[in-house]
């Protein structure tokens, strides 16, 4: 089945710093989602981005489907950005495959 790899596995930032999270996938996908799992365990939809670039406030994402990767950019990070960021790709009939996540800690 399709493989999803995220890097880096862990990231520590000071408040105000910028960061880039990467998601590589092993096969053609129809769709890709980025999630933030906050410290309370909730999974928050960030982007639905099968291709192209989207921006939402301090966050933006770019997917280059032909090269099988997606990037999540976080600018001017805040402590509330802490948590785990997951990339998930859709392969086949409505089945979402998750990466193992990037754990982000933003310190004040």
């Amino acid at each position, binding site marked *: 089945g399709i493989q999803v790899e995220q890097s880096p596995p862990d990231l520590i930032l000071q408040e105000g710093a910028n960061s880039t999270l990467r998601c590589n996938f092993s096969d053609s996908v129809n*769709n890709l989602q980025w999630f933030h799992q906050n410290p309370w*365990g*909730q999974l928050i*939809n960030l982007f639905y981005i099968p291709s192209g670039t989207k921006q939402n406030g301090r966050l933006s994402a770019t997917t280059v489907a032909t090269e099988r990767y997606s990037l999540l950019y976080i600018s001017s990070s805040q402590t509330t950005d802490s948590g785990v960021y997951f990339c998930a790709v859709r392969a086949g009939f*409505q*089945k*979402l495959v998750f990466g193992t996540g990037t754990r982000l800690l933003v310190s004040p």
Partner: protein
Amino acid sequence: DAGITQSPRHKVTETGTPVTLRCHQTENHRYMYWYRQDPGHGLRLIHYSYGVKDTDKGEVSDGYSVSRSKTEDFLLTLESATSSQTSVYFCAISPGQFYSNQPQHFGDGTRLSIL
């Protein structure tokens, strides 16, 4: 956010007992999913449903069964719980047209501990 309610939110039970988790949606979405989340594995699909009484297995379906008698409810049952089923369980929904450009939205999770 999508109207998804999972119940219970927390449960502690003993090995060998039956457990049923409920997912209720108010979005009238066709597709519903059950995932489990474990350290080092991300989220893995257990079962999913593509309509009332229509279900299929995911990648980690052994030891689990599901039922969907109404559009809004999707039940996950552990017939005889084992300690390896201790996990956080998430329900998700999507409108679900074939290859449609619609994301999945997740509930807040159920933390299940089996002693």
